[in-house]
Structure formats: structure tokens, C-alpha cells
């Protein structure tokens, strides 16, 4: 049976179509998937793409970093309170962690009052304390200089 084993030249469809057009492949040998591919082609043609062996040292990636406005609040939370008093329960899809509650409370207070960030953070901490969540301040140790021992 006729076939073309050149996977780097054209697509599967183009090779079979050309084999049939030229008469090398008989109509009776037409593959089952041919009509289906013709009716429903893929979004992008499955052409073989040669991978570049020499890549840019400073590659510019087109994939944007995903950051939200609440990430600023989260960063502040993790810097001051560490990982939080409660661990994450990943089995529950509706789980709200301590950090997320902090963020929600912060955004609530921000919409009501016109205070600046640092004051708002303290207000949020106090509000959460009143709800029963204790936040332990993470002790931030200064960098200790190690004296060389001779």
C-alpha cells in the first residue's frame, strides 16, 4: 500500500491528499479519517516545527505574569504574619484561608473608609481579632554577622 513517511514535510492530511491526487493511492485505500479531517480541520495545521538549537540568552517570553491588586495585601500579610495560624485545607474547594479572609476584610474596609494603607492593615488585623482569628506577629530577626573564628 502506498504511503509517505516524511513526517517533517507538510501535514498528515496534505501528504495523503497529494498521494491520492497523483493517483499513487487508490480511492479504495482512502483512510477513514480523511473525510472527517476535511470537514473538521484542526485550528492549527500540525506541521513539524524545527526546534532552534541556539536560543537567545535573554529570551523575551510572551507569557504575561499574572498579578492581582490583592497580591499587595497578601505580600504584606505574609511578611508580617508568616504563613498564618491555620493550614490550607486543599480538599475543600470552598476553603477560605486566613490570608484570604484578611484580604476580603481589607477590601471591605477600604471601600468604607479613606485611610491610608498602613492604618488600614492595622484596622484589618483588629477586625479579624474581634472575629476570633489571632495573628501572631512574625519576629523579624536582624541579620547576624558571623564572626570568623580563628
Amino acid at each position, binding site marked *: 500500500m502506498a504511503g509517505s*513517511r516524511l513526517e517533517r514535510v507538510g501535514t498528515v492530511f496534505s501528504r495523503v491528499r497529494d498521494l491520492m491526487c497523483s493517483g499513487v493511492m487508490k480511492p479504495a485505500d482512502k483512510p477513514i479519517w480523511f473525510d*472527517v479531517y476535511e470537514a*473538521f480541520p484542526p485550528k492549527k495545521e500540525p506541521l513539524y*516545527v524545527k526546534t532552534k538549537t541556539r536560543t537567545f540568552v535573554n529570551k523575551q*517570553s510572551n507569557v504575561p505574569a499574572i498579578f492581582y491588586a490583592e497580591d499587595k495585601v497578601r505580600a504584606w500579610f505574609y511578611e508580617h504574619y508568616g504563613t498564618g495560624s491555620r493550614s490550607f485545607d486543599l480538599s475543600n474547594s470552598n476553603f477560605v484561608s486566613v490570608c484570604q479572609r484578611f484580604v476580603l476584610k481589607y477590601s471591605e474596609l477600604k471601600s468604607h473608609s479613606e485611610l491610608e494603607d498602613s492604618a488600614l492593615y492595622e484596622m484589618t488585623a483588629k477586625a479579624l481579632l474581634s472575629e476570633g482569628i489571632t495573628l501572631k506577629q512574625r519576629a523579624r530577626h536582624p541579620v547576624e554577622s558571623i564572626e570568623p573564628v580563628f
Partner: protein
Amino acid sequence: MAFRALTKGLFGLRHSRGVTVKYSCDGHFATAASIQSPQPQTDDVKEKILQLPLKSPDYFRVSELFSLKDLFNARVHLGHKQGCRHRLMEPYLYGCRLDQDIIDLDQTMEHLQLALNFTAHIAYRGGVILFVSRRRQFCHLVETTAKECGEYAHTRYWQGGLLTNANIQYSPGVRLPDLIVFLSTLNNVFQQHVALRDAAKMNIPTVGVVDSNCNPSLVTYPIPGNDDTPVAVELYCRLFKMTINRAKDKRRQMELLHGLFTPTPSSS
């Protein structure tokens, strides 16, 4: 060894059906009038059965089987870390959250719909579908999925000439798969699975789940998505099983329907 004998027997069981064909070259349609069958009506009916599903965009209604919420809950959007990213997967990524690639689920929805539709049509036409995955974690799941659809699976070591040297490794005139579905396009050493290149060589279309560290160029119908999480792989297996069973049931239905009308000359 027993497995090879089993696949050999199974490949030989399916027989190809003679079908009147139409093919287009440079826009012209030419009906092959050379095939003279004693029952021209049966062939007409068979042709109608085969051509009818191609007219509607979603004949088997595969888009009903999944939703974006299902994909999200199954963690299909989670890719690998930024360092593992394949250059060709960049168009399919939504973004990068703290160094982890997030796959664009809108694109995944479209690709999944195309892929499932293609699989359904192949199953409807009685094509041989081969499930391939070299992930040991899901090897049993893939094999049971294939068994429940009535199709085939190969989740063990892929010998070099399985597709390209099939006439010698099995027997001359063995029937090769008409579609290969990859639940993971990588093998155990994070290189592209040999079957992908071999399928392209043997002119067999492929459907494959491509993660952010895979090369999607040779896959005919890629499905950008997570191939590592058990929930995601179970979702894919369930979707493929449902589409194939749906397509086969539809075929049986159509054959029964038209089988009743074949004796009368005025067929609907």
C-alpha cells in the same frame, strides 16, 4: 508476550468495510464510479450514513459533555514551572502565576471540542483507536478506559518498529490504528513519545493532551492541558470513553434505522 499476541489477534479481527468514496483534488469533486456492487441501494444507504454526520458541526453533541467549570475543578489549567516551558506551548498559555504556567482554558475548550468531535466521527466510522500513555501512574486507568470503549491501549514500553515495521512484527496486512490518542505525549524520560513521530510517518492522525513542557507541533488535534494530576487524567479518560460509546451507539442506531428501510426502493 501474551499482550503482543492479544493485540495481534485484536488487530486482525477488525475488517475494513468497502465504501464508495468521493475525494476532491484542486476543488473538483469526482465520484469513483468504478465500484460496481450488486446492491447499489445498500451502498447508497451506507454512504448516506457516513456523510450525514459530517454536515452538522457537533453531530454527537460532545460540547455537552464538559464545561469550563469542570475543567477548572479538575485542575486542567495547571502547567509546569516556567523553566520547563516548551517554546511552542507559549500561544496556549494564559499567563505565569509565581513561576507556574497557567494554561488558557478558553483555548482548551475549543481544542477539546474539536478533538472529541474528531474521535467521535472516527469511532462512528468503525475506526481503530489506540490509547497511548507512558505514565505508570495512569497505565491501569487508560487500559480500563480502552477496554470499556471496546478500543485498544498501549501503555507499556514502545518497541521501535511497532507501527513502522508492523508487517514484520505482527503479520503482513495487519490493520494499523486509524487514530492514536495520547493521554500524555512524553515518555518516562521526558522526551517526546516515539509513537507521535511514528504516527506522523504512517499518516495516522493523533489526538494528544499537551502539557506546558510538551511539543505540540506534530499532534494533529492537540489539547493543551494538565497531564499529571489524577483528577485531570480521569476527566480525559471519562470524556473519551463517553464520546466513543456515544458515537458507536449512534452508528448502531443508524444502521438499524436504515436496515429497516433497505428493502424498499424509496429509502428516506
